[in-house]
């Protein structure tokens, strides 16, 4: 509990150190004219709001990533008991990782790691 309280305290101090930089932002808002707010494009302009249905080019990769991330959660407890359990732990994790490795190889063959 003490560690958590310290952590939160440290984070709060950090946030408090940069917050003043934004207080002066608010104060100067008055001098921001409409023509100054135009998005920067090197002299060019955008016809519409930049917020759009943004076509991300790596969407199959993100789904694969989520599966990998799940798997990571099993690895942390495994790492802690690895030395105690010995060769059995190595074998079990080797099996687990090679199952997932198959997933990566399959995804690569299907061209997932490209800009779609």
């Amino acid at each position, binding site marked *: 509990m003490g560690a958590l309280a310290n952590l939160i305290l440290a984070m709060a101090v950090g946030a408090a150190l940069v917050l003043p930089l934004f207080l002066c932002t608010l104060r100067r808002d008055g001098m921001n004219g409409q023509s100054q707010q135009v998005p920067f494009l090197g002299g060019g302009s955008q016809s519409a709001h*930049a917020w759009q249905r*943004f076509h991300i080019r790596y969407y199959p990769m993100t789904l694969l990533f989520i599966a990998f991330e799940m798997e990571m959660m099993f690895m942390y407890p495994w790492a802690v008991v*690895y*030395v105690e359990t010995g060769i059995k732990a*190595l074998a079990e994790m080797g099996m687990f990782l090679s199952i997932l490795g198959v997933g990566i190889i399959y995804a690569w063959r299907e061209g997932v790691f*490209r800009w779609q």
Partner: protein
Amino acid sequence: MTAIPLVFALLAAGIWLSALAERFASGRRFPSGTVFAPLLQAARLLSQQSVRTEHPDGLNWVLSPIAYLTLAVAGLSVVPFAPELAVAPLDTGIVLWGACEALTIVAVFLHGWSANSMLPLIGGYRFVAIGLPAMLLSMFVLIAAALPAQSLSVGAIVESQRSLWNVVRQPLGLPLFLLLGLAISLRGPMDYGDAADLSGGTAAEVSGPHRLAWGIARLAMLTAFAAMGASVFLGGYLGPWLPGPVWLALKTAALLLVLTWLGRNLARMPAPRMMAALWLVLLPLSFLDLVIAGVEALP
């Protein structure tokens, strides 16, 4: 509690050192005293106006630099300065660090999203494509470092290096970890968020104090990252003659210089190629690192 001032002292020193190293590496000689150059730059930014774009997501625009810096502080607070001397000596230290990395990706994305401008938006999205797989790498190498320590706490990982540093024991770990460091502090070959081809990417629209805050947060993350790398791979506070915090600071400084040099001297490849390289080359390498660590740690 006593470690909190230490954390901020290390952050301040790291920010100042890396800002200085950045200037020095760029080969420019500034007429006005080099040592104070970062301070002068900060003063200049403070005197400038913070421009708002057309209808930005104001709350997130302000929150993302703050969150970025706060995450750097949170990451640094699991790093021990001496035995038992950390802000939060948690049993789940490297999991917390992983959570900080994940949230950093969110913070950078939000920074790019909230300006409502095309260049930052592309920067934010592109950063996610590289940041996510790069994070996997760092998790694997950190887990490999946790094997001999039999614990997820950073303190135990440092203690496990009394006989031999992890940088020797697991030679693949540090280089892979450094790559992630470059990615989450937005620099050099992994700078896909704030790159020059997007005129500054997520930071393309920020000026004045806002830009100062973003710059500080980036350097703070770099420092936190270097301290973490020093603890996990270079034996952290371990070392003869000098007290622990000094050793940690020295090793952090060394890693900061290495990172600055790498960041300025490696070319950045287009994002699709980098994404493929991360998954198909570097991720298998991190598996290999895990296997090396595993075989080495067997009793």
